[in-house]
């Protein structure tokens, strides 16, 4: 084990692979020194494991109705009680993790690269390209997420796929703004000038030099945004526009539990706890990542 | 025998790094009277940290520790943070390198100098203004009435540094620490600013610690010189005796600087293995 560690921490790497892995390892070590970040990472690990191994972890069928066991208190048999159709809430929360994970992953995959590219191009070229792209970005940025999502699903019909697309469309402008701001800080830097002098084309500079520098702040921002995305999806679910019954999406579960909130509080609050826990996890991890990835800290020695 | 202005014995400043605690100043000792002392070193030598340590400005996670750190008989290490605040500015002042970064960009020049004064003295508005104008004149700024309403970005580098000097000397301190006061300035302005510091230090009978990487500059403006390398003092001599320096590092530094009448084909390079340098 120590030889692997020595290889990774070697001051004079012998290959590009060793250098990159060593760098990643150092960042990992730094991240692990932050207790909150570790907590966040563990929470997310639980989310992923719950999603992956749901069929083995969940004690009961999340969709199985049992009208004799309606609205039972949390107990040894049902850790989080049952809902109005007798379904085990704990199992539904576990299966709901899959949906949550899918939502955040898809939104991140769609919105982040799109925003990154638009922002980087905008910041790099400046001039009218910047004005046009930022104008478009501002149009999208000025639309409230939930309202646009509502409009979208109203047009295309409710469903989790449309909810995801709607959220992605409202998320990318923020990433474009960040990527542009980041690009502007080093756009006139000497290393970019050096590349231009060496004859590199704009495309090459953007893809190989600008984008890699924007990715750290992008990763941090996306992670921190996850909480908001989950809440937006939950909000849509709450309004009945996201995941449709009987899918165990956490927001939809809260919505259904509203009717029983006073007497059978667990139906709404259990999925609520799950949302809070996962959002916190993303926030802690995002903060930790920011401390590790912030280029200003790693820049000058 | 008069009390020396500053007595330092075995000063250590250390910082944590991933590889363990590193000492950036190792066991530094010197005494300073009302004279001009130059501390010379390259980056990483610990010279700037020394200046900050005297003012107890080393921030956690850095740690400073000394056997003796006395200013005019006052034990600096036993002072509370509040007591240190009374000393800073009023009795020990520091000028830093770049006025672009050391002046507050959103306050006018006059307001900043007035603040420096009001932190330590209670004066009426008219008295404050009079003192500020008087101070600006003493740093050779020609139309102080106009300058007090300017913002830092509206003045040149040389003038900004003079404003910094005015700000730091208006409370009439006993000791001035100048940390690379002219490194960010053009060559023609450097001499003016240093002459000004020199004159003010002499007129007020202050002690001066001039920290710089430029050996020749320090030799011109100081009485004594300390050469630092990797946190330690490697040479201590009178400025006039600099060319007789005995330590190989000092000799190496002196030889490595190109001269105005340069005839050498190659500059001698410091052989760092000649002593236990990094």
């Amino acid at each position, binding site marked *: 084990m120590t030889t692997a560690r020595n290889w990774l921490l070697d001051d004079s790497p012998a290959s590009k692979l060793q250098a990159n892995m060593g760098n990643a390892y150092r960042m990992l070590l730094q991240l692990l020194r932050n207790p909150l970040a570790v907590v966040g990472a563990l929470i997310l690990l639980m989310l992923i494991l719950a999603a992956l191994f749901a069929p083995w972890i969940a004690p009961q069928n999340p969709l199985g109705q049992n009208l004799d066991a309606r609205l039972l208190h949390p107990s040894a048999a049902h850790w989080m009680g049952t809902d109005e159709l007798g379904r085990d809430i704990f199992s539904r929360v576990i299966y709901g993790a899959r949906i949550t994970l899918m939502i955040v992953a898809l939104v991140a995959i769609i919105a982040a690269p799109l925003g990154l590219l638009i922002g980087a191009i905008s910041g790099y070229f400046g001039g009218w390209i910047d004005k046009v792209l930022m104008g478009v970005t501002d149009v999208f940025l000025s639309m409230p997420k939930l309202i646009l999502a509502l409009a979208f699903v109203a047009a295309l019909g409710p469903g989790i796929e449309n909810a995801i697309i709607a959220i992605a469309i409202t998320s990318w402008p923020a990433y474009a703004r960040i990527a542009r701001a980041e690009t502007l800080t080093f756009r006139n830097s000497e*290393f970019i000038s050096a590349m231009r002098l060496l004859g590199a084309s704009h495309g090459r500079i953007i893809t190989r030099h600008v984008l890699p520098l924007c990715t750290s702040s992008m990763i941090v921002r996306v992670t921190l945004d996850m909480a908001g995305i989950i809440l937006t999806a939950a909000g849509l679910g709450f309004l009945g526009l996201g995941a449709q019954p009987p899918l165990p999406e956490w927001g939809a579960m809260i919505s259904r539990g509203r009717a029983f909130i006073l007497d059978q509080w667990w139906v709404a609050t259990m999925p609520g706890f799950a949302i809070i826990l996962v959002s916190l996890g993303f926030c802690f991890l995002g903060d930790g990542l920011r401390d590790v990835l912030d280029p200003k800290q790693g820049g000058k020695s | 025998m008069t009390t020396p202005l500053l007595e330092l014995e075995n000063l250590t400043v250390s910082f944590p790094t991933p590889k363990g605690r590193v000492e950036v100043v190792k066991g530094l000792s010197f005494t300073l009277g009302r004279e001009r002392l130059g501390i010379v070193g390259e980056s990483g030598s610990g010279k700037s940290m020394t200046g900050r340590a005297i003012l107890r400005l080393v921030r956690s996670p850095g740690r400073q520790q000394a056997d003796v750190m006395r200013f005019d008989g006052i034990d600096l290490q036993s002072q509370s943070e509040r007591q240190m605040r009374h000393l800073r500015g009023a009795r020990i002042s520091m000028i830093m390198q770049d006025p672009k970064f050391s002046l507050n960009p959103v306050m006018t020049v006059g307001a900043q100098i007035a603040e420096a004064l009001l932190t330590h003295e209670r004066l009426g508005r008219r008295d404050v203004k009079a003192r500020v104008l008087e101070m600006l004149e003493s740093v050779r700024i020609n139309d102080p009435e106009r300058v007090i309403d300017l913002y830092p970005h509206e003045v040149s580098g040389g003038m900004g540094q003079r404003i910094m000097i005015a700000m730091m000397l208006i409370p009439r301190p006993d000791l001035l620490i100048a940390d690379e006061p002219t490194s960010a300035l053009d060559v023609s302005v450097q001499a003016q600013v240093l002459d000004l510091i020199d004159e003010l230090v002499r007129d007020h009978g202050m002690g001066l610690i001039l920290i710089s990487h430029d050996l020749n500059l320090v030799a011109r403006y100081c009485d004594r010189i300390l050469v630092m390398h990797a946190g330690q003092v490697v040479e201590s001599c009178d400025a006039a005796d600099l060319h007789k320096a005995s330590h190989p590092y000092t000799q190496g530094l002196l030889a490595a600087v190109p001269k105005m009448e340069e005839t050498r084909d190659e500059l001698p*390079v410091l052989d760092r293995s000649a002593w236990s340098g990094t």
Partner: protein
Amino acid sequence: MSAITLKNLDISYGHTKVVTGVNIDVAEGESFALVGESGSGKSTVLKAIAGLAPDWTGEISVLGQPRGHKVDRAFAGQCQMVFQDPYASLHPRKTVDGVLSEPLMIHGLGNRSTRVVDMLQAVGLDTRFRFRFPHQLSGGQRQRVAIARALMLEPKVMLLDEPTSALDVSVQAEILNLLKRLRREQGLTYLMVTHNLPVVSFMCDRMAVMNKGRVVEIAPSRALHDGSFTDPYTQALYAASGGNPDRKEAP
């Protein structure tokens, strides 16, 4: 043949003219200094030659070829630049190997690994630096990498923008020696911008002094030995830099 010719060069940034009427001729193989204080326009002249300051009028030609106003791929093989700040001139996320391979990849040159290793050796860095990142290098080492990068395409003309002013004294000596040696070995032409007269004395054959965007004097660097300058600004600069103008009256 002239390596760099500047005729009636005026450079503007937006509405302000920062350089006026510059006429300079740098011969091939010569080391020429552009001296001045901040705001004199000296760095702007270099940028215009490189194509990084497009708003100029007049004539610029390098190695007989007139320069356009933009950056030019063919030009990259003729003339390269070393920048002032070693901390900003290398991409923070690329290894030294990556930085040095890039110019070869852009121009489709093969044999990359050998060339990178050879160049590292030529600038005095051994192979243990090859896969380090810039934050693992000292200022002097970064500047060596920047010099190596500039030389990868084997240019004949090098534009040096205050290459050592951000470095410590002892490191400056090493870099200046390196630059001098490389020039001798490869027959390069240097146009060096600096505010430091002793560096000019060591490195350069001739110098042009700039003040507020104009060239006020062109003199051989030997003039630094006795202060025999004709322009009053140059004389003042010489005196302020610690030059002894009385020397020329000494027997």
